[in-house]
């Protein structure tokens, strides 16, 4: 393999940040699927899941930006800045980079609407947020086709693991949907879960302390 020149450095950086972006976007999607799960994820309170979902999505955007800019400024292939957001306008692999551009557009739309969530109609925000699945699917398709990196070896397994994780989470979530408590009963159920000390706590098996 020849030494890393400036051009190949950009190319490697684009591929590397692409892989990291895919992993981050997969993580964001997983957290999004799991965030509504009732009951506790062991070790992860709900506010952690939502917080992580938000922070990771911002980190993912940063890596996607790096991925896109290194690819565009790599002199080896001609992509053009416009092709970042307008799909199918790239001279190099217009279809598969176009899929990536669509995915990027969707991610930006999701983030902008989420940042402005307090100001926009909630139903509209929810409807738009379903497009997250399309954004992630587009990212996977783009990853598979824009380069051959993920066609073999450890990166192939990584890709398969990402797809399996999201598919598994979605299937699990659908199976849980039938067993969710109606909203009106949720607070009472949580209250039942909390047992005040002295009622069921094992430490209080002895005679109850009298209050002076």
């Amino acid at each position, binding site marked *: 393999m020849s030494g890393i020149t400036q051009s190949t450095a950009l190319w490697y950086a684009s591929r590397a940040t692409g892989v990291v972006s895919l992993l981050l976007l997969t993580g964001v999607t997983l957290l999004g699927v799991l965030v509504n799960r009732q009951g506790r994820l062991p070790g992860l309170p709900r506010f952690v899941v939502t917080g992580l979902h938000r922070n990771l999505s911002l980190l993912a955007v940063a890596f996607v930006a790096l991925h896109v800019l290194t690819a565009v400024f790599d002199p080896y292939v001609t992509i053009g800045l416009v092709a970042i957001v307008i799909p199918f306008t790239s001279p190099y692999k217009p279809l598969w980079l176009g899929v990536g551009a669509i995915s990027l557009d969707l991610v930006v739309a999701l983030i902008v609407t989420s940042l402005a969530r307090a100001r926009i109609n909630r139903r509209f925000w929810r409807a738009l947020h379903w497009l997250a699945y399309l954004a992630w699917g587009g990212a996977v398709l783009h990853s598979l086709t824009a380069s051959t990196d993920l066609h073999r070896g450890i990166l192939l397994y990584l890709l398969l693991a990402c797809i399996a994780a999201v598919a598994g989470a979605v299937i699990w979530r659908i199976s849980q949907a039938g067993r969710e408590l*109606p*909203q*009106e*009963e949720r607070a*009472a159920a*949580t209250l039942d879960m909390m047992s005040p000390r002295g009622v069921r706590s094992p430490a209080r098996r002895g005679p109850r302390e009298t*209050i002076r």
Partner: protein
Amino acid sequence: MTYGTTVPHPGQPGEPLDRPADSAALPRLLPAQGAVPVDLRTHLHRFGHLPYTGRAARLIPVLQAAGLTGRGGAAFPVHRKLAAVAQAGTRPVVIGNGAEGEPASEKDKSLLWISPHLILDGLQLAAEAVGSDAVGLYLSRHPRLLDKLHAAIAERAAAGVDRATVEIFDAPPRFLAGEESALASRVNGGPARPRFKPPMVFERGVAGRPTLVHNVETLAHLALIARFGPDWFRAAGTDDEPGSMLCTLHQPDGRRDVVETELGTPLRSLVTLDGHTQAVLSGGYHGAWLPAADAARMTLSNADLRPAGAFVGAGVLAALPADRCGIAEAARVARYLALESAGQCGPCFNGLPRIAAAMAEIASPRPDPRAVTDMIRWSGLVQGRGACHHPDGSVRFIRSALHVFQDEIILHGQGRCVDPARRPFLPLPADTALSAADWS
């Protein structure tokens, strides 16, 4: 016990019984002769005929000059709400809010029972002001109260007093049933649960139309301002907070009264604040506690109460006796507030039960010291993140209890309590919401 009752006089035939020529005289909304329901004839005799203005929006500058603010708790300027609805679009809806989901408040039910015609007058005038012919009254589900209002409306229809037909809607006995968007949801035929905003109810509420929602006491004041003018209204109260208001008073000896008083009245004139009282709750279960010594120096005004972390709200004042456990009371209310969550927003239906459990822990002998830190952490997480202000208000109530009853917490840490029997003081309904049906 009514504060500021004027001595009733028979008056001349044809003269209104209690013309408020003495501007500052109370009571205004309640009849002078006591809690006797007023029928249409007596109402017209005392106050004269409904003064329709003849044109939409004409009443708005009058209300602005009077400085009338909402009496449902939020104290929003009435003229601004009317203007917003009048400008929001076509075919607005007007609903009078008499649901009074707050268990510690009785003033709306009392006013509806005693002076329904003032409220119904206010509804008609508000409808005229925004150009609406779709009018409703939203009431808590008491059969006798509903019958009374049906009868009052029928009486007015027979006498040709009302221009718009008033439809009655009943509310489930939920704490949140009186919230504006919950009201709109219920009137639309759904459950009485708050909705996310935007859009605001005054833009899209009942049947997707701009909806004006006013507390029934606000409408009653409106009806009197339309008759006697803004200067009359301002003759009572303070410059910044004019007028009179109804208060539900809980005395330390267990007596409960609904009184009409002017804003700026010293709190010690309303509730007993001697050595028998340790603290006062102002503003209901989304309000805040005040130590009795502080409250004794304050008046019924946001100018005095806001800096202390409390507010006037819907006029609930509860004086907790010195021989009761304030933390146990707060824990009971916290449990009620948690169970009254609509279950729509994670921070609320997860956070409030956890906070309530922590309060129960603190109220028990030798509590786990982590309970207080848990509660402080959870309080910070639930605020400002829901469709309504239920978590925010509940946290305000609980935080103030932790602050005011600090000494009690220390006692509990030593295994002691000022009231080991934990006798309840504050009123709470016996039934909790168990299923979806309880919200409709």
